[in-house]
């Protein structure tokens, strides 16, 4: 991991990881989230209900700024 020391202001919600510093608030992820697990608040993406998240990865696929991504499931984690 070459960016280990990168000071990205990330918050780990378990299923999803969000970096609000990179989010520009375009709303694409929230509009195309099939379960509406995420929502825009003060022009930044935040969690609406983490239990609704199915880790489908569409937010990660369509985020133009790489500000949101799916956290790895426990059985997929590498050392």
């Amino acid at each position, binding site marked *: *991991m070459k*960016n280990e020391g*990168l000071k990205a202001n990330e918050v780990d919600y378990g299923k999803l990881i969000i970096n609000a510093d990179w989010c520009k*608030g*375009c709303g694409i992820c929230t509009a195309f989230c099939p379960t509406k697990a995420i929502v825009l608040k003060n022009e930044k993406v935040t969690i609406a209900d983490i239990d609704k998240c199915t880790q489908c990865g569409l937010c990660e696929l369509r*985020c*133009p700024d*790489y500000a949101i991504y799916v956290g790895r499931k426990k059985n997929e984690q590498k050392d």
Partner: protein
Amino acid sequence: MPSQLVDQYFRADKLPQIWCPGCGHGIITRAITVAIEQLGLDPDKVCVVSGIGCSSRAPGYLDFNTLHTTHGRALAFATGIKLANPELKVIVIMGDGDATAIGGNHFIHTCRRNIDLTAIIFNNNIYGMTGGQYSPLTPKFDKGTTAPYGNIDRTFDICDLAAAAGATYVGRGTSYHANVVTSLVKKGIMNEGFSLIEAISGCPTYYGRKNKKGGPVDMMQWQKDNAVTVTAAEKMTPEQLEGKFLIGEFKNKPEPEYTKEYQNIINNLQGRDV
């Protein structure tokens, strides 16, 4: 720490990018790195070349061998790189104006030459970086800074143009259909010859605002609603296809590749001289 993909293939210290909120370019750039990851290419053997424009900022964020060149000339630089180092996988990122207006002649002749490059044109229908002037891809009657009453020029169809000029692999995706872009780029990189992938991207700041297309989400929704896959279009009537555009693979017809032909000449001549 960013996601594994971003950590591995991006210069994360340069992020967030300069692109406007909701610009599709970031999505397409990511789709290209996913293709490189899935092919398992050695990052040291990948070279990403771009010209000038919004799209051409992309290599600045990508952690490969990258080159940011002059307006419209990305393909000329890429041709030089490929001829000097044929083992490199050369990916060219251009915008619609960069590739088809300023670089139009380079574009058609690179297609004709069938050199092993993979060109991805980020088509946002306008010159974004310089303030919203109309490009050869601005649809007829749409507005730009230099066409305040509507543009009366007809547009190019980049994919038809490339196929007619001799590109051996041609396809189209959109920023909404990022997975389609990934699969097309994968096949394009694997194709020995010139591959052209058009990726339709939304420009909410200039094209969207000037033409009342709504915000980023509306532009993505437009792509979702109006893109028709090639296979689905075969079963549709011309009336049903009115106002729609096609996505998918349009041409896959391998032909002799330029650097190989060039090497053949060298081999033949050296064989004769010795």
